[in-house]
């Protein structure tokens, strides 16, 4: 297959991530990947497939089941000039490496007065809807958004997955990178991704759908839910503008503000549990800067304040739905 043909191939979200890793590993001999089952197995979902064969066991390290040591070791490697991509087999297990992330990696630049940069990406599959239960469904980015010194990223499309992962790898700061596992192999979002130095810079939102009646701010899997809700809203002659923030930290407030200046109404949608989730932070910021702009109370659609239960009827009950987003937007528009 020629390069041009490869270029033209439509990629799913997972392949986009895999390509990003292969290309960055190729490009930067100082890049190391670490995690459980990433080498011999190629990763629980296959994101790291093929890396071990290509780059060997010193750059693709099958780590023991030791999330804390994995992050800690990544810090040590970064101190010796390496860049490191760490895989959490499920992002839920990040709780086992929590201290190393929030108290060590996150604060290192600050504590060293800028002398130590830790270019570490901690990535892993996240999110519900797959029937994974409390420990295979989390969207726990708020913990890290609340830990100064970390960047937090969550792509919603294959090209963003690739472009944001590459940008995260090249960023000098630790990044927690949420991959949406429900999107890994989703057919209807496959995309042709430009070849070459394709990067999506951190801190830039994108507008997934333009509209004038209500601004819907979201990210990750919820982007697709919101787009579906927007279609249904359009049937009711309500034009929703759907903003995909793409990076949670740093946040592109400007794009949100500009949109609200136009629509004067806002709904925030996020999959995490409600209290102290990032939806709340968005609402707080919008109410700070947008007091004069809003014609209706801002509304958030989130998971209920519960764990994610296993059986389907319960899981569906607590997670956001297209219906719920539709209704929230209608409420805001009708206010």
């Amino acid at each position: 297959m020629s390069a041009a043909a490869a270029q033209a191939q439509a990629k799913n979200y997972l392949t986009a991530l895999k390509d990003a890793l292969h290309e960055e590993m190729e490009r930067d001999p100082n890049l190391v990947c670490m995690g459980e089952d990433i080498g011999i197995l190629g990763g629980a979902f296959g994101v790291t497939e093929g890396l071990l064969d290509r780059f060997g066991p010193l750059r693709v390290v099958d780590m023991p089941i030791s999330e804390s040591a994995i992050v800690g070791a990544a810090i040590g490697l970064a101190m010796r000039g390496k860049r490191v991509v760490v895989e959490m087999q499920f992002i839920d297990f990040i709780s086992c490496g929590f201290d190393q992330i929030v108290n060590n990696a996150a604060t290192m630049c600050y504590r060293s007065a800028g002398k130590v940069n830790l270019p570490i990406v901690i990535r892993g599959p996240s999110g519900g809807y797959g029937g994974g239960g409390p420990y295979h469904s989390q969207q726990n980015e708020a913990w890290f958004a609340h830990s100064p010194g970390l960047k937090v990223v969550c792509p919603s499309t294959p090209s963003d997955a690739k472009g944001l992962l590459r940008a995260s790898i090249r960023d000098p700061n630790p990044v927690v990178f949420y991959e949406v596992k429900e999107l890994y192999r989703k057919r209807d979002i496959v995309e042709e991704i430009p070849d070459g130095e394709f990067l999506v810079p951190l801190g830039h939102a994108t507008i997934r759908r333009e509209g004038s009646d209500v601004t819907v701010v979201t990210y990750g899997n919820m982007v697709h839910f919101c787009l579906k809700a927007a279609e249904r809203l359009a049937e009711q002659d309500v034009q929703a503008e759907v903003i995909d923030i793409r990076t949670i930290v740093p946040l592109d407030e400007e794009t949100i503000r500009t949109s609200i200046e136009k629509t004067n109404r806002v709904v925030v949608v996020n999959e995490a549990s409600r209290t102290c989730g990032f939806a709340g932070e968005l609402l707080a910021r919008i109410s700070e800067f947008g007091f004069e702009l809003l014609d209706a109370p801002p509304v958030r659609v989130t998971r209920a304040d519960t764990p994610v239960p296993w059986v389907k009827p319960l899981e569906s009950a607590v997670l956001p739905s297209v219906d719920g987003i539709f209704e929230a937007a209608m409420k805001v528009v009708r206010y």
Partner: protein
Amino acid sequence: MNSESSVVAKQTDAVSDTESQSLRTRDQLAPADHLEILRQLYLARYFDVRLIKEKRRGRLRGTLYSSHNQEAILVGTLFGLRPDDWISPIHRDMPAFFLKDMRSGWNNPDRKGMSVAEVCAQVWGKEASPIRARDNWSHIGSLDKGIIYSTSMLAATIPVAAGVAFAFKLDGQDSVVLTYNGEGATARGDFHEGINFAAIHKLPLITIIENNQWAYGTPVELECPTEDVADRAKGYDIPGLIADGQDVLDVYDKTMWAVERARRGRGPSIIECKTFRAYGHGDHDDDRAMRYRDAEEIERGRSRDPISVYKRYLVEAQLLSAEEADRHTPENRDALQVTDDDFPPEVIAALKEAVEFAVSSPLPEAEEAFRWVFAEDAE
């Protein structure tokens, strides 16, 4: 000890050093006990075979972590426990939930183990599950029955089990806690913190390591630096026993040795049961597992089926006739090749009833999803 058990000949120092207590509790088993052990091995195997088939047919949600070929560990560790002892099984140990205290009667409603029906209700995700199917598969428990509820986080249950063991000490009770883990989980900080605490206070905590050579797609050499995983015990100056995980009586003997020691206030032990994972890590991994492990390794690993190892012992010890041994032969065969004819009728009956119950039970109601985030007084 038959020649197949030579793997266990080497024991860590702490064992030989500590006490002269018998390592052959098996000698006290009555002939009926042996037949019961065999029945339990059949039941554990049949349960797994059935789930594998159900899963293939797309009838079950979630991941099946097959216990195939590892049944002797569960039956052997659980058979000698008292009803008041506690356990904490992990993902690969589904049969443990009903095997616990099964000696008190398969259908005894008061026994301190779950019924097969309850376990099936959980697997089928039904309201009748002990946890109303709010968390998946092996994350069930029961305070009444002495079964600790686990999370997914490997080894996280060890400190919890140590806490239960501390409560036994505080209450002056000589019950013990058995906690199960794969060899991979021994790399986690919680493994260390929990066992260290238990060793300091000589708590009645026995950690069963099911060393099936693989942690998902990672071989044991990349999880553990010692020759045997049991060697981890040396770091706590506690016994680290090695059992032949394919030999139910060897597992039984070693467990009883550690249990009796723990009851007498002598503290925790680790028992490494050497075994081999017959299939993929989970059913989703069955195909890939054939690639990251080579065929010969799998062949070798599966070559000592715990049912046939035990049958051979029983026949040699004249506890079973060769004819009886050959009546039902699910052993040494792939799950998909085995049929109902390969199991004794009482085993089939027990599971059939349970599955029927599970299948016909209702799902939990959606409204329940918002309950029990916090304790409800009304309960």
